[in-house]
């Protein structure tokens, strides 16, 4: 897809590069949210991938295995739970984010983290939707 509109595609790639290069939200939290969105959208292709920055930062595959149980799994601390709950809410309905919810996320990861996570989750969602609509995201059952 991106090759067909090289300049536009390169601009998207630059956004993705900068998302992982920013320093206000750690790559492991970001990656776990990306993978949770892939689980919910059933984008198997995205779920099978690992972002190098997250791996380099110590992404724990055990946590990936327990990702669908993040709300009760002890490996997920309050900070990660705030991120993952927020990522799920954004995917379902950004209008459903309440002042209290946003304040809780900001308390967990700061205002910068909140802004980056919000934009990042939107990007994860749409890039995964693009894969799915192209018929490339989901493995046959």
């Amino acid at each position, binding site marked *: *897809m*991106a090759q*067909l*509109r090289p*300049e*536009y*595609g390169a*601009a*998207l790639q*630059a*956004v993705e*590069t*900068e*998302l992982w*290069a*920013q320093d*206000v939200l750690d790559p492991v939290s970001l990656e776990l949210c990306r993978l949770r969105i892939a689980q919910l*959208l*059933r984008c198997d292709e995205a779920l099978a991938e690992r972002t190098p920055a997250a791996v380099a930062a110590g992404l724990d595959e055990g946590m990936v295995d327990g990702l669908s149980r993040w709300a009760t799994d002890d490996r997920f601390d309050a900070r990660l739970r705030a991120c993952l709950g927020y990522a799920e809410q*954004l995917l379902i*309905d*950004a*209008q459903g*984010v309440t*002042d209290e919810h*946003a*304040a809780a996320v*900001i308390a967990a990861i700061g*205002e*910068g983290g*909140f*802004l*980056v996570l*919000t*934009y*990042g*989750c*939107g*990007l994860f*969602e*749409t*890039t995964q*939707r*693009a894969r*799915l*609509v*192209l*018929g490339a*995201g*989901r493995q046959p059952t």
Partner: protein
Amino acid sequence: MSSVPRTSILADGRPLGLADVAPGLAAAQAAFQQVAYPGQVDLVTRELVRILSGRLAHCTICRNLRLNAAVKRGFEESMTDHLEDPENGDLTDRQRAALRLANAFFDDPAGYPADARAELAANFAPDEAAELLLDLIRFRPGSKLTVAAGTEPASDELIFQ
């Protein structure tokens, strides 16, 4: 909807935004917007897809923004009456195909039907279809940021730009 910013207000009166905390990311996002236009697909079709994306994200700015350049090229407000059910609107085949893609993208992307895929291919060259998909990737993250950060306008009126 919240039009009360959820981040700190800076000395210049603006709420803290992405450019203040992640300038590289914000600059890349801005470049992504800039490079999107003029593009290969006619602006009216792209405008319809953009408005539908804004509606489905419940973003006040995105669903109400109207690009003057699209209006000059034939965009009419009545075209937005059937964005969610384009088969019922007075739209061109090309507009219908683009809107069917957009509706599938946001509703059930894995279920994008073969007939709609064929309709898209019949109405758009591969690079044009790629442009529509890149548009769909681009629109929503900014919409969600606007909504969640509480920076939507208080009024729900059309904005011409």
